[in-house]
C-alpha cells in the first residue's frame, strides 16, 4: 500500500454546499432571477400594450 493511500482523503463538499459557498454565483442567480421574471417580463408586458389610435 502506498503512503498516499494512508492519508485521509479530504471530505467531499456536496454540490449544494459549493453553490451556497460561492458568493458570486449567488449574486449572479440573485440578479438573473428577478431581472428575467420581474423586470424583463414586466417591461415586455408594458411595451406590448397597443398604442391608442
Amino acid at each position, binding site marked *: 500500500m502506498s503512503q498516499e493511500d494512508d492519508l485521509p482523503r479530504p471530505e467531499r463538499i456536496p454540490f449544494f454546499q459549493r453553490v*451556497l459557498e460561492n458568493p*458570486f454565483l*449567488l449574486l449572479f*442567480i*440573485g*440578479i438573473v432571477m*428577478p*431581472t428575467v421574471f420581474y423586470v424583463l417580463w414586466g417591461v415586455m408586458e*408594458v411595451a406590448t400594450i397597443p398604442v391608442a389610435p
Partner: protein
Amino acid sequence: MAQFRVCPDSGFYFDKSAESLMKANAVAGAVSLLIAGILGLGVILTRWQGVHLLPADTFYQVLTGHGINALIFWIIFFEMAILYFASSTLLRTRIAAPRWAWAGFALMIIGMVMNNIAVLQGNSSVMMTSYAPMQAAPHFYLGLILFAVGALIGCFVFLGTLVIARDDRTYEGSIPLVTFGALTACIIAIFTIACGAIILVPTFLWSIGYIGHIDAAMYRVIWWGLGHSSQQINVAAHVSVWYLIIGVLFNARPMSEKVSRSAFLLYILFLQLASAHHILVDPGISSEWKVFNTSYAMYLAVLASMIHGLTIPGSMEVAQRAKGYTKGMFEWLRKAPWDNPVFSGFFFALIIFGFIGGITGVVMGTEQINIIIHNTIYVPAHFHATVAVGTTLTFMALTYLLIPVLFRRALFLPWMAKWQPYVFSAGMTLMILFQLGAGTLGVSRRHWDMDFTGAMLSFEYPGTAYTLMAVAGVGGVLGVLGGAMYLIVTVGSLLFGKKLDESAGLFQGFGVPLAPSSYNVSQPERLPMAPKLAVEEHGSGGFEAPGTFALAMALLVCFVVYYFINWDYLASVWPLS
C-alpha cells in the same frame, strides 16, 4: 502594524477602518431616523382627523420626507454598518478598500442632504414613489442616484471583504450564518440599486429636459423593483441580526444551519419578485405575470420567512432548555431577559413582523383579495409592521448591543432603554392594528382629508373609520415617543455614557478611531468552525422546541382565519353566485 482591537466584553475583533465606517454609517442612520420621526409625527397628527394638523401642501411635503428618510436613508445607512460588521468583524478580517467605502459613504451623505433639501424647498412633494408624470426637482432624483451609487460601493466593499477573508483563511469552514444572511441582503441590494439606476437616471434626465416623456406604467413596474426590493434588503438584514442576537444573548445555535441557509437561498431566488404585488391592479399587465410573481414566487419567499420564524425562536428555546428552563411549554420564554432591551426589542420585532406583517403581506400579495385593500391605509399599516417594527426595532435592539461593544460607552439612562422597546412596539402595534381596520373600511392612504372638504367627488366614510384613525393617531404618537426614547438613549450614550475605553471621547462616537494603543492585535486568531450539532447529525430533533411549535401553530391558525375572513369580505363587496 496592528490594526485590530478585541472587545474585552464580547470578544469581537474590530478592524480600525471598518469600525470607523460602522460608527459613521450608524450615526448617519440615526440622524435620518430623527428626521423621519419628526416628520412622521406631522403625518400621523394630520391623518387623525380630529387634529388634522397640517395644510394639504405641507402634509404631502412632510409625507415625502418621512417616507424617504425612514424607508431609504435610515435603513440603508444602518444596513451598511451591518454589512461591514458581518464581513470584517464576524470574519475577523481587514475591510477591503476602506477609501472606496468612505467615498461611498460621502456619496450617500451628499445624496441624502441633496434629496432632503429638494423636499424642504417644497417643489418635490411627490412622495417616496415619485410616480411619473408627477415631476420633482432634478436634485431630488440626483440625490437618490448619488445615495444609491454610494450604497452600491458599500456592497462591493462587502463582497471584496469576503474575498479577502477567504484568501487570508481567517475562518474555518463556511462563512457564519449571520454573514450569509448579510450576503443575501447585499445581493438583493445590488438588484435593487440596479432597478433604481434603470428608472431614476432617465427620470432625472426627464426632469432637466433631456427626455420628453416617461411612460407611467413602465415607471411603476421598474420603480417597484427598487421600492419594494429595498424593503427586502431589510428582511434579509434583520433576520441575520436575529440570528446574531440569539447567538450573543443565549449562545444559541441555529436548529439546522442547512435549513436556515436554504431559507436565505429562497430569499435570493424569490424575494425580489414580490415587488409585483404593487402592480396587481395595474391595467395592461397580464395575470400570468402578476400571479407568477406574487402567488407562486412570493409564497416561496414567505416559506423562507416561516422557516426563519420557526428556527430563530426554536433555537433560542433549545438553548434555554439546555440551561434548565424546561418547566412547561414556555418557561424558556418567561425566564428570558425581558429587562434587556436587546432581547425585548428583538422578540417584539419578531412577533409583530411575523404575526401582523407576515399575515397581512400574504393577503396583499393575493391578487383577488388585494383589491379590497389596495391603496388604502391598510398598506402603510402592513409596512409599518414589517419595516417600522420588524426592521427598525431590530436595528434599535442591535444598537443597544453595539453601544458598549462598538462605541465603548455604557448605555445612558438604562431605565429608559429598558422601557423603550415596550413603548415603541405598543404604540406602533396600536397604530398598525387600527389602521388595518380603517383600511378594510376603505380609508385611503396618502390622503390629506378624509372629509373630502370642497372636493367635486365626495365620499362619506362610516363614523367607525374616524374612530379607528383617531386611535391609530394615539398609537402613532406613542410610537414617535418610543422612537424619541431610542434617540435620547443612543445620542446620550455617545455624549454622556460612561467610557468603557479611556479614549472613547466625543469624536470617537462619530467615527474617529480610539487611541492607537487600543489596536494591539495584528491579526486575530482564525475563526474556528463550530462543532456539529447532535440534533442536526441525526436529523431527528422533532419537538425539541415544543413552545415554538405551539407559537407557530398559533400563527398558522391566525393566518388561516384571517385569510378566509378576507375572502368573505371580497364576497360581500363583489357578490357572485
